[in-house]
């Protein structure tokens, strides 16, 4: 499975990959590009990654979640140039138990943010740009 993509993130194939007649509860998380960051107007984002490690880390995160909970997990992160409103990351978790689905979905997105080597450069309305450092601010999506 490939976790990184330069194409728009589509939900349908992710849902299809985890759905089953035995798993009736699905929890999804979507992270989309916001128009503001720390008070500055964002017009575009560039996501880049340490590709081989990012793939490996995503695989480890998914495997850990599927071992810890009775769930099936799909994960996709987009790279490249994204506009405001575009989906940057999608987590889709299916389970027979909705508590497991919610817990695993939340865990996966937290671990993706904490562990997967992906970076983003924000382009602002005033023409400037900055590498985003989430550790330098209290503001998180």
């Amino acid at each position, binding site marked *: 499975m490939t976790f990184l993509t330069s194409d728009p993130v589509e939900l349908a194939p992710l849902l299809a990959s985890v759905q089953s007649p035995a798993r009736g509860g699905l929890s999804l998380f979507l992270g989309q590009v916001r128009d503001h960051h720390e008070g500055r107007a964002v017009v575009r984002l560039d996501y880049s990654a340490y590709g081989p*490690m*990012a793939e490996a*880390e995503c695989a480890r995160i998914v495997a850990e979640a599927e071992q810890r909970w009775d769930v099936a997990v799909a994960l996709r992160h987009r790279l490249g140039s994204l506009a405001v409103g575009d989906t940057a990351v999608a987590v889709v978790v299916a389970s027979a138990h909705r508590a497991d689905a919610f817990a695993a979905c939340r865990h996966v997105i937290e671990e993706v943010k904490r562990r997967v080597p*992906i*970076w983003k*450069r924000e382009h602002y309305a005033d023409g400037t740009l900055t590498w985003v450092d989430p550790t330098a601010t209290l503001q998180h999506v």
Partner: protein
Amino acid sequence: MPVAASTDITVRVLLFASYAESLGREALEVSLSQPASIADVVSHIRRLPGGASLPPKPLCARNLAHAGQDDRVADGDEIAILPPLAGG
């Protein structure tokens, strides 16, 4: 008490995002005396032109997995120095 032989090893160092911009490159080979740790690789990189802007203990990876500053490095390892992650 045995003493480790001080033969040189060579690792490939990868730089990303703001760190790659600071150093002006995305990859380089670094030779070190054994035994060597992630911290030794970082020290080497921070002494290069532009390297002083890196923090003393940046996030690092060894062969595609997160690594601690004290982790040993071996000949042929791929060591990545990772700016603050911003995925998601």
